[in-house]
């Protein structure tokens, strides 16, 4: 998903879930920050690099694709952008290595989603915003995995856009081009995607690169052949999926606010219904960027002007704080939430016997081991336990 949904739509959803104006801003900021919190960003703040929730294109270009490099990539993308739906799924074919990759395929309403939302409970707006980003992406990025894999994430020229609705649906072949600088041409069905690379672990085969930005356009409806689907066609209806994502975000945030346990496959359509027509209208509009429409809707919902996303908003507080106090700042709490999410997802993947996301050491059994950035997380958990 893009800024229009992660920032503005999350803001609207937070409002409908009953959060205050300030909380809505913080939650939406953190939801969008997940797409910006790269190692480059963290290095500029002197923040722990393990808290990275994304990798910029330039970082990906330099990323190693040996075992450790692939594990690092998988940890980031599977934890925040391609949350696996079912870590025990059985593809019915292939060996163990293929099965482990298949189990990383993203989708909504998985067990990990429940864990993600519950992990944010009682941990502030930063954790909520991060969880909402992950939740929203499970809808948009479904059928792709957050690990570089040709046999899972590849697509081919059997890729058709479905234009119109109902009886007047027109099928048009999607034409891909490898020009990252030119914007997608919606009029003529020309979209940018990553280059075909035969190497199984090429960066080009990470996530939905082979489908371009189509999963991130709320208006797009298309059908294609995912590599894992063994020639079965998958139909993706983004307007419907994004609507579900929005309703589920409202439900999740309401649960976190009121203390109600979060259950998958539940949506707060009752709270959203008064705005359904407006939301569906924005979701269905064919445009590369819906930020303006979502911002206007948000302002109508709340009656307050909504500022655009400002990456630098909380940086000075972090930089001005003493090193020992940084964990208590706004960004510090976000970084700890990111570490917690990454740690949780890596642990779940590791427990299935897969090493795709690396090794996870159970702190309670074996004490602290591994990357020292996670000491922040250990201290936070200890403080919470003491507090309780």
């Amino acid at each position, binding site marked *: 998903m893009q800024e229009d949904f992660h920032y503005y739509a999350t803001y609207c959803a937070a409002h409908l879930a009953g959060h205050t104006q300030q909380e809505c801003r913080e939650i939406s900021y953190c939801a969008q920050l997940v797409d910006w919190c790269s190692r480059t960003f963290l290095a500029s703040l002197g923040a722990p690099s393990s808290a990275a929730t994304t990798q910029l294109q330039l970082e990906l270009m330099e990323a190693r694709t040996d075992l450790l490099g692939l594990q690092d990539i998988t940890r980031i993308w599977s934890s925040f952008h391609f949350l696996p739906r079912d870590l025990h799924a059985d593809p019915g074919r292939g060996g163990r290595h293929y099965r482990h990759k298949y189990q990383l395929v993203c989708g909504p309403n998985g067990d990990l989603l429940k864990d993600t939302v519950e992990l944010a409970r009682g941990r502030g707006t930063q954790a909520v915003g991060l969880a909402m980003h992950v939740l929203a992406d499970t809808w948009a990025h479904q059928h792709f995995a957050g690990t570089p894999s040709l046999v899972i994430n590849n697509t081919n020229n059997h890729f058709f856009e479905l234009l119109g609705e109902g009886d007047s649906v027109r099928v048009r072949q999607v034409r891909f081009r490898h020009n990252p600088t030119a914007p997608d041409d919606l009029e003529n069905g020309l979209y940018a995607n990553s280059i075909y690379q035969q190497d199984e672990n090429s960066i080009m085969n990470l996530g939905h690169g082979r489908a371009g930005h189509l999963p991130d356009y709320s208006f797009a409806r298309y059908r294609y052949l995912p590599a894992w689907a063994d020639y*079965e066609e998958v139909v993706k209806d983004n307007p419907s999926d994004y609507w579900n994502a929005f309703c589920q975000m409202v439900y999740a945030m309401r649960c976190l606010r009121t203390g109600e346990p979060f259950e998958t496959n539940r949506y707060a359509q009752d709270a959203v219904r008064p705005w359904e027509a407006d939301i569906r209208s924005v979701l269905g509009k064919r445009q590369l960027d819906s930020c303006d429409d979502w911002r206007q809707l948000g302002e109508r919902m709340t009656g307050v002007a909504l500022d655009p996303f400002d990456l630098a908003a909380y940086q000075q507080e972090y930089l001005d704080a003493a090193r020992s106090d940084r964990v208590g700042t706004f960004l510090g709490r976000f970084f700890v939430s990111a570490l917690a999410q990454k740690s949780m997802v890596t642990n779940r993947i590791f427990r299935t016997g897969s090493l795709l996301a690396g090794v996870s050491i159970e702190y309670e059994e074996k004490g602290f081991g591994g990357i020292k950035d996670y000491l922040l997380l250990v201290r936070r958990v200890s403080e919470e336990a003491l507090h309780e």
Partner: protein
Amino acid sequence: MVDVESATKLRRSRDALSISGRAIVAFGLWDIARAFLSSAYGSSLGQNDEEIERVFADFDIENMELLAIIALIVLVLLFLSIFLRFHVGLAAHSEARGKKKGWGYVVLAAVMALNNTALVIVSYTFLFVTRSYLSLAGTLITSIIDLTSIYAYVDLIRSAITVKRLTVCQAEGR
């Protein structure tokens, strides 16, 4: 309205047909390479330049003419073989992309599969009958490629039959 299962099977078979077709074309290129290597470096291990020169020293004019005719026939057959492989492979690839093709290339593929099978059997029979075990390595390598080629032909035939059957069903709306 074509059911989903048939559509999936058609896609899978078309893909398999395309791959087999390209494999057959690749084997045609291998034929060219093999012919070149055989003529440039000799087809039989264990023979050296001195032995070959001694053999040719005994040839008179009539035998040279016969040799030339045989060489010409072999060359023609070689080109024919390469041409047929290309024809079968490209026709299969073309049908896989949706163009309607007759049964000719499928029949040809069957003939060539049988031909390759016979070649493999003959080469091993010759090897063991003449006990020329020095050429075992060459025969082994060649037969591995021939067996792979046979597999590609069989897969092509199977996929072509499936594609044609399902395409007809699709056209009839079944």
